[in-house]
């Protein structure tokens, strides 16, 4: 699985999601718009129907006025008169209402003007007829009625009304079609949108499923890799252990085999020294002997001149040889001790660290008093570790602190401790001569020392301490400034488990 493919898939998922969102928004907006439009269209349809109604109502009223007028003319019944008056009163109102309703349509406005004119004329005729009837001239009224019928004023009204109704019919069909279209559009829009959303959802599901599959594969591969890694690590660890053991054995054998010839060198050098003394005694006695007499036997013959010089050179040479052998022996012993320490099995026990360090401080109290040094032990965390190793670590560090104090300055040595993430951190701080930063690594190397070489030592202590700390699963470091002091920090696991390190020594 490449990072590129990862990015591509993520991109596709985001794209799908965005597309889905856009489609939804679009559908919602479209639906709202179309529903509004449909409502508008329906309103117009209803309006058209109302106008038609109104036209018919108007016509009806006119007819009512007409028929009641005729009835009155024939019978002179007062009920016809009141009916006629009521119709006459309603007509202008109905006409006004119609005018208001068709105010939006210029064609209808023209028609209504014509209608109003025709109605006006007809109404005047009605009033005149009624006046004549009331004045008792029914014949004149009937003549007027016939005239009115001949003048087609009623027909004109009907025609205009019909044209208006036709116009409204046209509008009705138009508006109905509009409303239909809007509704169909809304429905199809919703349908298409829903379809799209479903398609996108399916696509997303497919993508998610595919990526889940890819992830499962990757997980399986990761598990395999982990298993392999563990095997590899085990293998390497075994190799390292083997190598480490090899080195230990090598160091042990070499130091042993080196010691054997060293015993000879030292032995025969001492014999030679003895021999030399004998030879020079003999030379001395011969030199002092009288020419013909026996040599003087004396325990301490004093040499002089060239003989004395020879004897001194001889013992000087032997002295150098012996001191070198002594040094070599100490180094070999140190290596032996280190390898032996490396082979010792550690035993984890619960340790009261404060008590342990106070015991160490008590054993070095004499040296500390001589160096005018004070050892302060703070609160220390208890740990589970190897007691002997811990004793060696801290007694080495405290010894060093006392050993390398600044001349003439009262020493202050502090041991502090704290815990962090399952580790105990111990700090041994002094106000001694300090260590040059360039030597901070060097001091941990075997047989290496730093600073003024005015104290006896092989350069083993810190190398040994670091080896022990490492075997206990810890680390150590130093921070120091020349002429100010040093702090050695030892970090050890609070609960050291023998099984994880001792195996390495097997």
């Amino acid at each position: 699985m490449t990072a590129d493919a990862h990015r591509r898939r993520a991109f596709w998922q985001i794209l799908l999601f965005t597309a889905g969102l856009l489609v939804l928004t679009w559908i919602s907006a479209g639906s709202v718009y179309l529903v509004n439009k449909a409502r508008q269209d329906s309103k117009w349809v209803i309006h058209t129907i109302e106008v038609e109604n109104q036209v018919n109502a108007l016509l009806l009223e006119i007819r009512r006025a007409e028929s009641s007028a005729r009835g009155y003319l024939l019978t002179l019944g007062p009920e016809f008169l009141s009916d006629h008056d009521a119709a006459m009163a309603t007509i202008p109102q109905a006409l006004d209402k119609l005018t208001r309703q068709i105010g939006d349509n210029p064609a209808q406005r023209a028609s209504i003007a014509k209608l109003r004119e025709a109605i006006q004329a007809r109404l005047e005729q009605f009033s005149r007829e009624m006046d004549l009837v009331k004045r008792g001239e029914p014949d004149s009224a009937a003549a007027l009625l016939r005239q009115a019928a001949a003048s087609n004023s009623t027909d004109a009204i009907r025609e205009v009304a019909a044209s208006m109704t036709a116009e409204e019919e046209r509008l009705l069909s138009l508006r109905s079609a509009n409303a239909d279209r809007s509704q169909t559009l809304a429905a199809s829009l919703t349908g298409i949108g829903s379809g799209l959303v479903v398609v996108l959802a399916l696509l997303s599901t497919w993508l998610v499923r595919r990526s889940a599959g890819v992830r499962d594969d990757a997980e399986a591969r990761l598990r395999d890799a982990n298993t392999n890694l563990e095997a590899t690590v085990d293998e390497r660890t075994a190799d390292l252990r083997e190598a480490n053991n090899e080195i230990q054995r090598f160091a042990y054998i070499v130091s042993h085999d080196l010691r054997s010839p060293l015993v000879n060198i030292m032995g025969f050098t001492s014999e030679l020294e003895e021999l030399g003394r004998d030879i020079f005694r003999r030379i001395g006695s011969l030199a002092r002997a009288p020419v013909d007499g026996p040599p003087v036997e004396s325990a301490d013959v004093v040499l002089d001149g060239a003989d004395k010089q020879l004897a001194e050179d001889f013992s000087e040479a032997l002295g150098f040889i012996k001191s070198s052998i002594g040094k070599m022996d100490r180094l070999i012993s140190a290596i032996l001790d280190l390898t032996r320490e490396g082979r010792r099995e550690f035993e984890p026990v619960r340790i009261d660290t404060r008590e342990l360090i106070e015991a160490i401080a008590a054993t070095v109290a004499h040296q500390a008093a001589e160096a005018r040094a004070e050892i302060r032990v703070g609160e220390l965390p208890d740990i589970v570790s190897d007691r002997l190793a811990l004793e060696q670590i801290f007694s080495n560090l405290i010894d060093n602190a006392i050993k390398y104090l600044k001349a003439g300055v009262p020493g202050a040595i502090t041991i502090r401790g704290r815990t962090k993430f399952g580790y105990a951190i111990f700090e041994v701080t002094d106000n001694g001569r300090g260590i040059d930063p360039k030597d901070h690594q060097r001091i941990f190397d075997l047989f290496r020392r730093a600073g003024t070489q005015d104290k006896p030592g092989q350069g083993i202590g810190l190398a040994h301490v670091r080896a022990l700390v490492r075997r206990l699963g810890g680390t150590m470091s130093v921070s120091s400034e020349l002429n100010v002091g040093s702090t050695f920090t030892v970090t050890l696991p609070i609960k050291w488990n023998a099984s994880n390190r001792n195996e390495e020594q097997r």
Partner: protein
Amino acid sequence: MTQPVTIIMIEDDEGHARLIERNIRRSGVNNEIIPFANGTDAVRHLFGADGSGLVHKGRALLILLDLNLPDMSGIDILKQIKENNHLKASPVVVLTTTDDSQEIKRCYELGCNVYITKPVNYENFANAIRQLGLFFSVIQVPAAAS
């Protein structure tokens, strides 16, 4: 009448052998010292051609043994001596450079009588040998069981 003790020295390093002999003599021990520079010869001498150890039946021996021999381990020789009926009563002094506590323990378990580490410091070395000489002069080497 006790017969004089014969010292058998198994030491591959000629220098060491010479130094040991010299210091034994200096401590005033004049017994016969038979040196062997390898394990094979020493074993042949100790156990005889048939390997039974009958050759030394009834003879008083003291064995000085180095552990690091070129052809075999001194520990094996020590084991063989202590397992042999005719030789097991002979005192064995292990004199070697090895100062490993495990090794020392092992030798004592196998029946070694004295274990001396050869110190590089010659004075200590000479002292150790001279004390051994003193030890030779006081011990009563028993006649081997018949």
